[in-house]
C-alpha cells in the first residue's frame, strides 16, 4: 500500500503541472513546437495517469463517458464551425482573414480557435479510448 500512496501523492502533485503543460503546449504552439494535437495527447495522458492510479471509477466520476463523447463532437464542431464562420463572413471556407478586421489578427484568432478544437477532440478521444480498453478488462 505504501508505494501506492507515494504514487497517489505524486500523481496528485503532478496532475496540475501536466495539465498546465498541456495548456502551455496548446497555446504556445504558435511560437514553439506544439499545438492542439500534442496538447490533447498530453492532456489525455494526464487523465490516463490519474485513472491508472486512482482507478477507472474515480476518473469516471470526474469525466463521464457521455461528456467525453460530447467532447469528440464539440472539438470537431469548433473546427468546422470556424470554417463556416469564415464562410458566413464572406470569405472562403476556413478563411481566417475575415474573422477580424485585421487579416493577421484574424489568422491568429482562427489558428487559436481551431487548435483548441483539435485539442478538445484529441484529448477526449484519447481518454475515452483508454476508458473502453480499461473498462473492458473487468
Amino acid at each position: 500500500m505504501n508505494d501506492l500512496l507515494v504514487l497517489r501523492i505524486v500523481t496528485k502533485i503532478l496532475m496540475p503541472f501536466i495539465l498546465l503543460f498541456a495548456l502551455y503546449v496548446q497555446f504556445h504552439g504558435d511560437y514553439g513546437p506544439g499545438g492542439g494535437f500534442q496538447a490533447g495527447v498530453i492532456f489525455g495522458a494526464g487523465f490516463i495517469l490519474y485513472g491508472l492510479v486512482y482507478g477507472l471509477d474515480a476518473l469516471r466520476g470526474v469525466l463521464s463517458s457521455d461528456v467525453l463523447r460530447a467532447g469528440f463532437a464539440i472539438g470537431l464542431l469548433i473546427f468546422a464551425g470556424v470554417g463556416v464562420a469564415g464562410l458566413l463572413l464572406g470569405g472562403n471556407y476556413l478563411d481566417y482573414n475575415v474573422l477580424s478586421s485585421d487579416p493577421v489578427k484574424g489568422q491568429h484568432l482562427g489558428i487559436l480557435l481551431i487548435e483548441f478544437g483539435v485539442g478538445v477532440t484529441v484529448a477526449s478521444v484519447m481518454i475515452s479510448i483508454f476508458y473502453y480498453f480499461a473498462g473492458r478488462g473487468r
Partner: protein
Amino acid sequence: MAVAVIGIVRARNLFVVVMLTGIYSLLAATIFVVLDAVDVAFTEAAVGAGISTVLFLGTLALTTSEEKKPVHNAWISLAVVAVTGAVLIYGTLDMPRYGDPAAPANHHVIPEYLEQGPEKTGVPNVVTAVLASYRGYDTLGEVAVIFTAGIGVVVLLGQWRAHRRRDERAEDEA
C-alpha cells in the same frame, strides 16, 4: 533502429515486441529532432512511444501475450516485400541527395511559406502556420479521422447489451 526492428520481427513474446516498438518510436523521434522536425518529434514521442504503447498494452491485457509460431510459407511474403523494396530503391536512385538545398521539394511552394507565412498569419512557427492555416483543411480532415476512430472504439468496445447476445449466437453457429 534496425536492431529494434529485427528484434520485433524475431521476438515471439508480444510484450517484448511492444516494448521494442516503443523504443523504435523513441528512436524515430530523436532522428526527427536531428532532422529539424521538432514538432514531429514531439508528436511521435507522445503518440508512438506513449499512446500507442498504452494501447498495445491494453490490448495485450485483454487478449494474450504469446505469439504462436507461424506455420505458413514465408516465401511469398518475402517476394512481395522484396519487389516493393526494389521498386523503392530504384525510385530513390534519382532522388535529390540527402540535405540538398537545391532539391525541388525545397523550392516551389516553400519560400512562400517561410517568407510570407509568419507575416500573413502572425505565427512564427511555420509548421503551425502551414498546419493550421495554409493546409488547415488537412488538419480538419485529421481531426475527423481521430473522431472516426473514437466513434469506432465506442461502437466496438461499448458495453452494448445486444453485443453479448450476438456473440453468443455466433458461438452457437460455430
